[in-house]
């Protein structure tokens, strides 16, 4: 090694717990080094110690943890031997940190400029004017809109993706030698994520910063990093260049991670069609719903869903895709009866399903079950798992005593949980276990339809993959149908038969799962599909060239609410058409229905042409 490494970590050990009590080692002797200007990725699932290691680069251990051994050198500084003052100076100039949740990292009561320039002013590194000028330069480098005036705004006035980039600006304002990114894009939509990643990559390259990028997403890491360190259980499993780790992984755990990311598409099992005239299990026609007071025409103040139609056949799975705010969750809540609908009809088993919960029959209650995204809040913390599962059994099936217990154990077995878990409360379970209990509770009702609202989003890749497998297995065995809501195209592809795409409450596309596989598709679907990071280096750079192209100009819009909602972001919009007339429903050769002005051949031409550079 000719030149000295920028960062050198040797035998790093971090323990949790104070010395007299039980001590758990959470980082077990980690070594790695990063050259100047290089980007290193720390990858692993939650609990693998990746954030703990990243924080130790700042000489920091979280409350309850302590760095117990090893050395961390940044430049010429031995970080761990510094006193409190030295560490403060280190964090001022040498190392900066970008946290996962930008919205929690900003003070809502102060302007963005105040907060972005604060590190520089606090450590008296530059004058106020110089700091402002530098911040504006950084805003420009990070491709933020209106860099001159952005600083005057408050954090709630910018989007989540912009806030995340502002967080990076805050870290970069002091010209640190090393920047630690801690899962900066995990909470963002794919379409936002790509913008943020591109901005980060550009600014890292421009400034020649050395960076450590912490993530659990291999595909993201493949775009950002030069080298990857794979962590599991606080130990390094693999350390190598991106191409080597992705193409020729040495360690078994790395292979497992890769397999969970590159999910093979399950063979499409068409559910047995018994007879031609069986009504679909769930059919929704022209649904509109929202929140707030209804106006004169019966439309709610905040429209979340507008003219959504779908149908789910018995035993099949419908995927609902969209960004956050597209109305996916509201759709599930309308079907579950938790949100009133303004217009449209919902047929369940060919019969009209009352909008209000109180008017549904016990049988309808039983047949529709909902599973929420956040297993932490979906299980009552003061009940034991046995109580949680016993209630639907008693409520729907009047099972009590030993019969209920037997059924409960069978359910736990069905979701592959040990019987011993029954006496615990949810606090004693891991995230994946809680999600399984959540599923078991829905299954206890013996339902026909389960509404799955982002059930794997809060879970690690490997755990999430296990839950998906479980869902597929349950469907085979019990013949339940799912409405599977997700923002993640790859999970939807892995489990669903049919797919609908929601944008701002409008159903812009509906069709078989295959519609996601290749063009032509709706321009928005295209954007979603193309925004999913591919597991190969260089993908982001190729994408960025496409994204850099300006959107076609669009004139003033006519005041018709039915206009295409996507026109503001559409790369193929047509002036005089998209802003004047509502799009009509078109059928593509694949059988998919889309809401777009473009013809099939036109879309095909545009999208294949676009896909070539990628």
């Amino acid at each position, binding site marked *: 090694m000719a030149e000295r490494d920028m960062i050198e970590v040797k035998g790093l050990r971090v323990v949790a717990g104070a010395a007299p009590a039980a001590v758990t080692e959470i980082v077990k002797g980690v070594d790695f080094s990063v050259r100047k200007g290089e980007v290193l990725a720390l990858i692993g*699932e*939650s*609990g693998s110690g990746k954030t703990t290691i990243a924080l130790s680069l700042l000489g920091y251990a979280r409350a309850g943890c302590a760095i117990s051994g090893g050395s961390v050198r940044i430049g010429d500084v031995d970080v761990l031997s510094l006193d409190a003052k030295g560490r403060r100076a280190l964090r001022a100039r040498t190392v900066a940190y970008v946290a*996962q949740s930008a919205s*929690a990292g900003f003070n809502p009561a102060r302007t963005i400029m105040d907060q972005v320039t604060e590190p520089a002013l606090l450590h008296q590194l530059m004058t106020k004017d110089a700091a402002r000028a530098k911040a504006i330069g950084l805003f420009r480098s990070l491709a933020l809109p209106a860099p001159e005036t952005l600083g005057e705004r408050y954090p709630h006035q910018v989007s989540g993706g912009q806030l995340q980039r502002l967080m990076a600006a805050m870290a970069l304002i002091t010209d640190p030698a090393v920047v630690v990114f801690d899962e900066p894009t*995990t*909470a963002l939509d794919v379409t936002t994520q790509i913008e943020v990643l591109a901005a980060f990559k550009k600014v890292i390259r421009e400034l020649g910063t050395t960076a450590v990028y912490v993530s659990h997403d291999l595909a993201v890491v493949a775009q950002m990093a030069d080298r990857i360190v794979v962590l599991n*259980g606080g130990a390094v499993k693999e350390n190598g260049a991106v191409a080597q780790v992705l193409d020729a992984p040495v360690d078994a755990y790395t292979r*497992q991670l890769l397999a969970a990311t590159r999910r093979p598409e399950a063979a499409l099992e068409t559910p047995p069609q018994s007879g031609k005239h069986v009504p679909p299990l769930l059919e929704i026609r022209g649904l509109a719903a929202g929140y707030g007071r209804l106006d004169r025409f019966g439309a709610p103040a905040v429209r979340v869903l507008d003219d959504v139609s779908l149908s789910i056949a018995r035993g099949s799975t419908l995927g609902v895709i969209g960004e*956050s705010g597209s109305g996916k969750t509201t759709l599930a809540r309308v079907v*579950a*009866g*938790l949100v009133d609908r303004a217009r449209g009809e919902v047929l369940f088993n060919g019969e009209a399903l009352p909008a209000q*919960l109180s008017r549904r029959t*016990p049988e309808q*209650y039983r047949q*529709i*079950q*909902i599973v*929420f*995204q*956040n297993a*932490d*809040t*979906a*299980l*009552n*913390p*003061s*009940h*034991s798992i*046995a109580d949680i599962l016993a*209630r*639907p059994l008693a*409520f729907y099936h009047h099972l009590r005593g030993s019969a209920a217990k037997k059924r409960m*154990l069978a359910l736990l077995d069905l979701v*592959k*949980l*040990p*019987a*011993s878990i*029954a*006496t*615990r*409360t949810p*606090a*004693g*379970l*891991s*995230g*994946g*276990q809680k999600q*399984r209990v959540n599923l078991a*509770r829905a299954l206890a*009702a013996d339902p026909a339809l389960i509404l799955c609202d982002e059930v794997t*989003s*809060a879970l*690690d890749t*490997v*755990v999430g993959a296990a839950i998906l497998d479980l869902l597929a297995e349950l469907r085979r065995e019990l013949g339940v149908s799912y409405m599977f809501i997700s923002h993640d195209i790859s999970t939807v592809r892995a489990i669903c038969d049919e797919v609908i795409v929601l944008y701002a409450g409008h159903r812009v596309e509906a069709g078989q799962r295959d519609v996601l596989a290749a063009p032509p598709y709706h321009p928005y679907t295209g954007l979603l599909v193309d925004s999913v990071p591919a597991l190969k280096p260089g993908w982001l750079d190729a994408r960025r060239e496409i994204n850099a192209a300006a959107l076609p100009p669009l004139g003033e819009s006519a005041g018709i609410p039915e206009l295409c909602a996507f026109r503001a972001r559409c790369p193929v919009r047509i002036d005089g058409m998209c802003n004047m007339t509502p799009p009509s429903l078109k059928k593509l050769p694949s059988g998919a229905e889309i809401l777009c002005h473009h013809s099939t051949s036109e879309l095909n031409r545009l999208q294949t042409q676009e896909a070539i550079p990628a």
Partner: protein
Amino acid sequence: MMSQPTNPHVPHAGTELYDVSRDELVADSAPPGEPTPAPKTGVLKRLVHRFSVLGLIGLLLVAFWLLIAFVGPLIAPYKGGALTSTEIFGSYGAAHPLGTDYLGRDMLSRILYGARYTVGLALAAALLASLIGTFFGLLAAVSGRWVDEILSRLFDAIISIPSKVLALVVIAAFGSSITMLTTVAAAAYIPGAFRISRSLAMNVMSLEYVQVARARGEGIFYIARVEVLPNMIHPMLADFGLRFVFIVLLLSGLSFLGLGVQPPNADWGSLVRENIGGLSEGAPAVLMPAVAIATLTIGMNLLIDNLRRRGRSHGGA
């Protein structure tokens, strides 16, 4: 917060989905499948185990006074109202451990008898206030907008009347009796309990497990009782303790003004007032009931602080 919610108490199993080794929560409970008797057996032990030293002191003080309220008259050396000595404002001694009052009555016996009024009255009033307040708070949270609106405005109206002035007026008008005192003290603190329980219940109502229960088709009373109440009981207990202290002080204050428990019976507040003449001599007759009030309130506060801390560390609702 939408991705990977972090809760320090939750062990993340990662790939070890079938990890059963983290069994510390099940360790002290019955074999699987018999969930109901499990929490009861260890509850006291766990309570004592969980309390800090200060909390334990508080618990002991409160338990002591509760015990005295029940057995006080049995262990008192003299009858409560009996004139036993010729010496007024007597000092500590073998015959009268806590001295004598302004009529020469045994102070220890007076305090032991008085505990029944102070602790019992306050306990009854606090229980009444908390139960009624919690009931209506829950009702407001689980039922529709109109019920909530009506109940809330009603209690707002009650809040707007200063409670001590109301108590004075009511007692001056109707005379002082035990039931009247209890009712007045309870009425003064019901709106506060309602406010707190309603907002707690509202928070719990927005959580997903309540939504699941609603989607399951459960009635509002099941949701209130089973899903909501257990998750707001800790803050409500803390609130109960606080109200108890306030009521003790309110009743003592009323007694001090001569509107509380009427002679010859006396609660601790009346004892202080009766013997206020001995203050200049430093007589135990005035100090001791004050010490009794202080220990009860401080003890209760220590206990509450501890309950609060536990409630918070559990993430509340």
